[in-house]
């Protein structure tokens, strides 16, 4: 079934958000969106380094890459790939190179949107 990937993406993408929602609602600490995003990116890097994130990407596709843990996965794999190609220098260049499109898109579109629109109210 080719369309199963959509169901898997829905399930995994949804469940990752549920984890974050539970962290925000059920912990005594004040968990802000910033903490959630930092936690997911860091968690994604670590799971990726341990070889646990790629299987999730293989199974759930965008369900694993669209959440910010997928951004962490890209960073980790980019940095490790950099070391494989260029040695120590690759640890400095590989991670950001792998995520350059997303970062640039966010900065460019973010800047333009902030100029083009006024906040409501």
């Amino acid at each position: 079934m080719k369309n199963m990937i959509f169901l898997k993406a829905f399930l995994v993408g949804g469940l990752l958000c549920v984890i974050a929602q539970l962290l925000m609602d059920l912990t005594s600490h004040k968990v802000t969106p910033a903490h959630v995003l930092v936690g997911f990116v860091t968690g994604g890097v670590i799971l990726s380094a341990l070889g646990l994130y790629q299987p999730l990407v293989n199974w759930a596709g965008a369900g694993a890459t669209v959440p910010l843990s997928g951004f962490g996965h890209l960073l980790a794999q980019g940095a490790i790939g950099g070391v494989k190609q260029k040695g120590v220098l690759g640890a400095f260049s590989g991670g950001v190179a792998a995520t350059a499109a997303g970062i640039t898109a966010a900065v460019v579109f973010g800047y333009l949107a902030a100029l083009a629109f006024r906040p409501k109210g």
Partner: protein
Amino acid sequence: MAEVKDSQPLEIQKKEYQKMVQEVQPRPTVGRNVFWAFVVGGLISVLGQLFLNFFQARGLALPEAGAATSTVLVFLAALLTGLGVYDEIAKIAGAGSIVPITGFANSMVAPAMEYRGEGLVLGVGARLFTVAGPVLVFGIVTAWIVAILYYFFR
């Protein structure tokens, strides 16, 4: 539900009151939050999968298709944030609209718009990184450590 009597000492009244609040408040809210986080987070991922399939069908390799997907999602999120739509979704979706890369884009645009009055440099330029800054710091540092460990222990 426990009753609070005026005749009880204040401490006990307080405790009883907290018990009542706990009984009444969090459970249904958490359930509803979790439900909407699941649905919206899942749907944004499905949207990503649609773009991913589309770009692959157009002949892009998986990494390039992934980069193109992120770019489109970030664009849409920036646009919807500018129009004030994304924050309306976020009120219901909670983490469902925070965790996807669209939430990352939203976290950049929203404060940059809000503080535009402080100027292009310290308003827009700096506030774009209110949340994105910490995300990049922790993501890049952790990935760097992982890569260095890999270099020494592979």
